[in-house]
């Protein structure tokens, strides 16, 4: 992490601490905000938060490791969470899960090489009456069919400001991503 980036992050964390209060109960709201913006919470951020809340950095690390929505390692800009509960399983989640893997070119637990999508299983998403269910970022998709996956991913690319694939042909290749800023990311 560059010094300049650290300074920006430091200022942001101070602002978060001022907003949520410099008390232990502010820890989760602060960490969730960092997670949302940076898609993970690095060691520098953990130490900075710890210093502001006057707790040991390892306390922060312990909390980050406990919650499945907080990550100590970098994740993609868009997190895709597929419900793995029994109701979604009975509704056919396996086929949908396979299609997401095919369209993203990654397996569950992985992040695309361009750093844009991460794919994980979630425990019950509370959509049992309309499974299979997916969370794409904060966007909920219920009763998902395999044929809809491509569109859902394209919507995510657009809505989250990720450049869409320009050529229909390359959309089928998980290994090629059109990126006008190629060389900068990953």
């Amino acid at each position, binding site marked *: 992490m560059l010094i300049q980036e650290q300074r920006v992050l430091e200022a942001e964390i101070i602002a978060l601490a001022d907003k949520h209060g410099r008390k232990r109960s502010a820890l989760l709201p602060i960490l969730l905000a960092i997670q949302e913006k940076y898609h993970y919470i690095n060691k520098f951020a953990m130490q900075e938060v710890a210093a502001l809340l006057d707790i040991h950095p390892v306390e922060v690390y312990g909390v980050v490791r406990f919650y499945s929505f907080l990550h100590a390692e970098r994740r993609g800009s868009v997190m895709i969470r597929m419900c793995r509960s029994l109701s979604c399983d009975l509704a056919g989640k396996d086929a949908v899960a396979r299609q997401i893997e095919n369209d993203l070119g990654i397996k569950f637990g992985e992040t695309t090489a361009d750093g844009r999508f991460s794919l994980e299983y979630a425990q*019950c998403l*509370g959509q*049992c009456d309309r499974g299979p269910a997916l969370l794409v970022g904060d966007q909920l998709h219920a009763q998902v069919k395999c044929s809809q996956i491509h569109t859902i991913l394209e919507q995510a690319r657009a809505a989250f400001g990720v450049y869409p694939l320009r050529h229909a042909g390359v959309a089928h290749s998980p290994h090629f991503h059109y990126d006008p800023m190629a060389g900068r990311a990953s």
Partner: protein
Amino acid sequence: MSTKPQDILLGVDVPIDAGLQRAAGGPTQAIIDEVRASGLRGRGGAGFPTATKWQLAKDATGEAKFVVCNADEGEPGTFKDRVLLTERADLVFEGMALAGRAIGASQGIVYLRGEYRYLRAHLESVLSARRDRRVLGTAILGIPGFDFDIEIHMGAGAYVCGEETALIESLEGHRGEPRNRPPFPVNTGFFGQPTIVNNVETLALAARIVHRGGAWFAGFGTPASRGYKLFSVSGDCEKPGVYELPMGIKVMELLELVGGLHAKAVQVGGASGRCISRAEFDRSLCFEDLATGGAIMVIGPGRDMLRVAKNFLEFFVEESCGQCTPCRAGNVALLEGIELLIAGRCSMAHLHELKSLGETMRLTAKCGLGQSSPQAFLSIVEQFSDEVLGQQPRA
């Protein structure tokens, strides 16, 4: 049994803030007395009498008191709270304000699970409209001293935080590991202060009860399980969804309503609940028989029961907080047992050992999660022993 009134939670004629209008100006004890008369028990599944919890918190001394709405609806198969928060958020917040009035709390916290973050904007707008209508904030309904406000606190993806002491740990900024009880949150809760943690449905029902009176609610259901309950129905049935039904309804009657009479088995109570076979379909859904938070998963004919059991055990292996050994290690051992059964390599002696391990977990795990985690496994291998034993190895 009388017919269903149209003004319980999901009726067509549910008034907003009628309970608050009726009781806010009166003595605070009257609110608790009304809830006690209703016989209302916690709708998260544990069934603790709501009025007792409120009374203990009212009688406890503390610098501040807190009302926490447990919207960490993480039990697989449960989605009724999602529906309530979407369609009846006002009732939930009304119930929280009444609870605050009853115990003398001025702060309410909604602990909303991370998976429901998309609901947050809606809930914030309902809260803000309530402040505008003076049914939230300072001097509610113009009553001096009736100050109560609500903030939303997001969870971050941890099933165990639905357990009330783990939820409080999480609110305080810690890992969501359950505390030993006693002391109970009603005495030593959020930051050591008296705190009540109630399920979303419980709070919404309390609002209806305070409006219509405890006797009205107590007129439905069974002697030990009064009133109506929301059931989250999913799986292999024609009409999945949320159903509001009287306590004590038989599994068979419910299956008929939802178009699931062909079911081979029903998982009652989600992953932490038990699986029943057709032989038990005449049992009742209530605290004196099959107690449940309302999750009904219908398992159709032809489904593989080992796949069902494996799904639940993988869930518990993932979601165990790791604090106590019976839950942390026990669920891994049970999952290995399921894999042996799937491979067709489990002896009866080994299955007996696994069952005995399950019993040990039930007795010795620290919290409700751990104690209930072996239930699905135990009920499936018992009810379906001829199906799960002697499996042919699959390619």
